């Protein structure tokens, strides 16, 4: 094979509790490659991701003093646009190999992925190539503006999406998480090939990326192929990317946002901003502890959930979750309700009651068992493993640590979370009422 390439050392990480192992290689370009062999599956899955999401709209280019500001929606636009290579549509290249390729953009990252049952290595080569080879023209950017405008309009017609994005606007004053990931029809029209090249050059450096592959595949072969692909590129060390995030005040922007849409029943989401941000395993621990707390407070096993359901104030659409990144964190709960104001009051009363009474060891143990089981379910999906491995990696932790951190959580951790989070003054409510004809 390629003589220019030295043997690539692979590190083997084993999780006894998961009965899984993962191989790690740090390539000369700065890229981290992880491979998790799963021999009994037909599907083989690879993700190539950059730590560049919708919130990375301001940054300082190397050798410059001035900040570069970009329109909302560039990360997502780039994600669309990379699929059009110099030689045509990337979808067709994967299709000719019988694989399916896709991508998604979140607040914090952009992921490109494919799923194949054979031709894994040619697909892997294609993946690395198309993500690393930008090609934008004025015409192709204009054409994409039309497609993305339809995507944005599709979201705008979705009431769950609207109630959520209104909640982000209420919770945050300045953090770009309050903008929609795809941007707006207006912001997307400000995007030019130059902006795209600049952002690609900054954020698609292998040192800012990670590649994860899973399936009946050989770790050495994966690492070698990716090394060969990136070997010839000019990946001189770039150093840290200086991302600029506006400093977010502690308080929320608004306590309540009301909107109207063509829906049959009111929709109500309640958010709690979490201002004590973490990194790495601490962040993962906080995420797991807070999610457990939410389950204890408002999950189906809680007395409060059952009381609210019986009274008709909530129905099966009621759900809760907590999300934590290095630059923002919040809990969200809600669903359809006949009376958003009453629901808000009931949630606050439930919180006060739980703070007075605390949780029992029995309740805590039950929820913990439930969470452990839930994680095992998720591990049946190669897609889940791949996508979550990547997002956990960018947060400075590891998916392999998940189960161990979860198992070590104590009742005190959960009670601390109850005390420190879910503050009434950091709460915001987003409501969509049926539009009156």
């Amino acid at each position: 094979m390629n003589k220019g390439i030295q043997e690539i050392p692979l590190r083997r990480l084993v999780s006894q509790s998961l009965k899984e192992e993962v191989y790690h290689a740090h390539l000369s370009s700065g890229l981290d490659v992880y491979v998790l062999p799963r021999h009994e599956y037909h599907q083989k899955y690879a993700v190539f991701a950059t730590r560049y999401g919708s919130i990375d709209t301001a940054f300082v280019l190397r050798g410059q003093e001035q900040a570069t500001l970009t329109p909302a929606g560039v990360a997502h636009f780039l994600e669309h646009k990379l699929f059009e290579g110099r030689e045509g549509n990337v979808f067709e290249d994967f299709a000719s190999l019988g694989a399916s390729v896709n991508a998604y953009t979140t607040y914090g990252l952009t992921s490109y992925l494919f799923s194949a049952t054979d031709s894994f290595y040619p697909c892997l080569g294609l993946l690395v190539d198309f993500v690393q080879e930008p090609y934008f023209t004025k015409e192709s950017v204009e054409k994409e503006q039309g497609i993305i405008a339809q995507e944005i309009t599709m979201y705008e017609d979705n009431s769950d999406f609207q109630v959520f994005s209104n909640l982000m606007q209420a919770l945050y004053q300045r953090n770009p998480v309050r903008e929609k990931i795809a941007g707006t029809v207006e912001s997307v029209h400000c995007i030019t090939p130059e902006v795209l090249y600049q952002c690609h050059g900054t954020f698609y450096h292998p040192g800012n990326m990670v590649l994860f592959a899973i399936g009946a595949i050989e770790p050495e072969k994966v690492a070698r192929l990716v090394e060969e692909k990136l070997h010839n590129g000019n990946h001189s060390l770039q150093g840290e990317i200086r991302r600029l995030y506006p400093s977010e005040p502690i308080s929320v922007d608004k306590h309540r946002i009301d909107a109207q849409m063509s829906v049959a029943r009111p929709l109500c989401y309640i958010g709690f901003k979490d201002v004590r941000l973490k990194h790495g395993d601490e962040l993962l621990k906080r995420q797991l502890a807070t999610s457990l707390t939410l389950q204890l407070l408002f999950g189906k096993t809680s007395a409060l959930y059952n009381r609210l359901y019986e009274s008709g104030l909530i129905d099966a659409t009621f759900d809760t979750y907590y999300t934590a990144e290095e630059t923002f964190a919040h809990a969200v709960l809600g669903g359809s309700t006949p009376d958003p104001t009453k629901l808000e009051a009931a949630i606050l009363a439930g919180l006060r009651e739980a703070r007075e009474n605390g949780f029992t060891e029995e309740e805590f143990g039950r929820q913990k068992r439930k969470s452990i089981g839930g994680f095992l379910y998720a591990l049946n999906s190669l897609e889940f493993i791949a996508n979550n491995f990547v997002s956990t990696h960018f947060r400075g932790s590891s998916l392999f640590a998940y189960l161990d951190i979860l198992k070590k959580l104590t009742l005190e951790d959960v009670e601390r979370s109850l005390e420190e989070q879910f503050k009434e003054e950091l709460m915001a409510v987003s409501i969509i009422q049926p539009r009156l004809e």
Partner: protein
Amino acid sequence: MFRAEEIAEGVRLHGLSTRKFKTITSKIYVQTPLGENTALTALLPLVLSRGSRGLPTMQAIASHLADLYGARFGSDVAKIGERHCLEFYYEIADSAYVGKDAEPLDGGMAMLGELICRPRIEGNGFYPQYVGQEQHNLVNLINSLIDNKRSYAVQQFYRVMFADEPFSTYKYGTVQEVRQVTPPALLGHYREIMAQNPIDIFVVGDVDLVALKEKWQKELSELRDGYHPLPLVRDHPTPGEIKKVQEEGDLQQGILLMGYRTPTFYDSPDYYKLLVYSGVLGAFPHSKLSINVREKASLAYYVWAQLEATKGFLMINAGIHPDNYAKAVEIILDQIDAINQGKVSSEELEATKRGLINGVLTMEDNAIAMIDRAMIGAVNGVFRDTKETINAIRQVSKEDLIEQGRQLQLDTIYFLKGHPEDAPMGRDRGKEGAAN
């Protein structure tokens, strides 16, 4: 591939023993004819999941499930062709991963039997409080269909295309039907379908199928009585004039749906020819619809074609700007014409076949996907293993596509027309461009 065995009259156990997954997944379907007693069937999964004899409240059920390492239980109704199926889903962690105190087969499967076979009853009906509350919830669910414009459009499209056929039935029924349900009527319906209708039990995971068979035989022995097989509907009405319906909706986008009738059903030997046809047309990003409507004309974010072969129709679905209706319909019709005239490159055909085969193999990595596919087979009375499926896909030729295309008959063009000028409400639009 599942091993199917009739364990009681009309009850089939489809088992797949494997160590591939970290959980054991089970799904149970009770088939009923679509369009009869819709509201009663739709209410059952809701009321059954509220409480059983041994676990009388939702909280008791949830706590028990959590104790079994977060076993999952779900219930709903599904529409497969002209069957309205009661559907139960259950998944439990394999004891190899969570420790000795979890007993998947005994504790786990007993739980499922408890919830399905021993409902909470008062007098001669289901527990009235649960029936009342779930009637209320179901009415809300039916009224909320309008909240999701894409689902709403599909249901409206069915109402137009299948106006005089059971397939137009919304799977949750109508508000009026739901309101008329009484606890005794619901219990009567439950007992009748549990006694007489086809039941399919699917299990995937590391389980002892012999022990499981005995368990279910015991669970169902008291309920089963006088099995009534259901006939398979194979009507193929010839469309007259194309039905064109436009409806104004309170949305910004326009949702376009087009429906073609086909005489090729799931159990036909020609099924895979039509499957490849719909793939070339619109199942993939490389398909004709995506390339021409999305990539070339920039008219849509999503546009795809989908085959419902138990009922026998092909549906095309696109989200477009309301002003582009005529243009989009024209391009879509052109794509159908192109295939029917044999304008399909060998690359297109090959890529589609590879994509479909990739999908078939990928399904084998997902227990629920395997079960859902096998259930379509159970309704249609035909089970095809993966090898047979892949071979059938490989053999499809361009001529087969032309032959299938000539049998397609355009029946309905439905358009839910939005108002792009309506600004979304309640937001300060001025602020949004601030990131520029």
